[in-house]
């Protein structure tokens, strides 16, 4: 215990985690339905995926999905790591790694999304 409160996790980060979770629940429902129930043979083939991504709304939804998942999963992971009460220095290292990883995965995801979308044209 210490006299000045630590600000490593406060309301807005927690709120982001919980609200992103709620949105993920909805998009995940769409995601699972499309990939397992609407896919004629059970899982989408390459051609079907490319066709699906010709709809700009789908691209938009998938980009949001990607962004929310990266945000939520990394905030969740960080919250688990904070339960171990890392030293202030280690916490900064954790934060940097998490941010770099999050940015990298988001860029990779957007690149992949665009690559698939443009395969149709």
């Amino acid at each position, binding site marked *: *215990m*210490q*006299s000045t409160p630590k600000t490593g996790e406060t309301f807005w980060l927690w709120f982001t985690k*919980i609200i992103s*979770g*709620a949105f*993920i*629940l909805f998009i*995940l429902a769409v995601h*699972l339905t499309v990939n*397992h*129930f609407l896919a004629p*043979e*059970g*899982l*989408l*083939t*390459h*051609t079907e*995926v490319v066709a699906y991504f010709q709809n700009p709304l789908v691209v938009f939804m998938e980009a949001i999905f*990607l962004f929310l*998942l990266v945000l939520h*999963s990394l905030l*969740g*992971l960080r919250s*688990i790591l904070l*339960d*171990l*009460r890392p030293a202030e220095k280690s916490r900064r290292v954790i934060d940097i790694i998490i941010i770099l990883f999050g940015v990298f*995965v988001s860029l*990779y*995801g957007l690149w*992949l999304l665009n*690559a*698939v979308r443009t395969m149709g044209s």
Partner: protein
Amino acid sequence: MEPQKNDPKNLWDWFNPKGRNVGGWAFILNRIAALGLVFYLYLHLFVLGKLAQGPQVFDQFIATAKSPLYILGELLVIAAALYHGLNGVRVLLTSFNIGVPQQKQMFYTALLLSVLGTLVFAVRMFTVH
């Protein structure tokens, strides 16, 4: 004030179900599911990179993904996502002091719905895939 020492050995206390109550089980399952989902999510994104390598590579992968072992693994992921997501709603509501006295019933409901949901997916996947 002097900070107390923490003991990484106690990490097991997060997961040890001995002596835990209903809310404790909900927490244990939620954390295990969450860790599994994080691992799966980034594996999934990596594997989907095959989409960029064209139809041959991707469709060959899709063919392997329809083997029973893959389907079982996939069902585990679906079960984890359903439970973690539905329990997430329970955590969200209780976090605003809504339904805290009913938290046990909400946990049982989340668990039941996840099992039912997983069964629906299992039927679909083992019959159509």
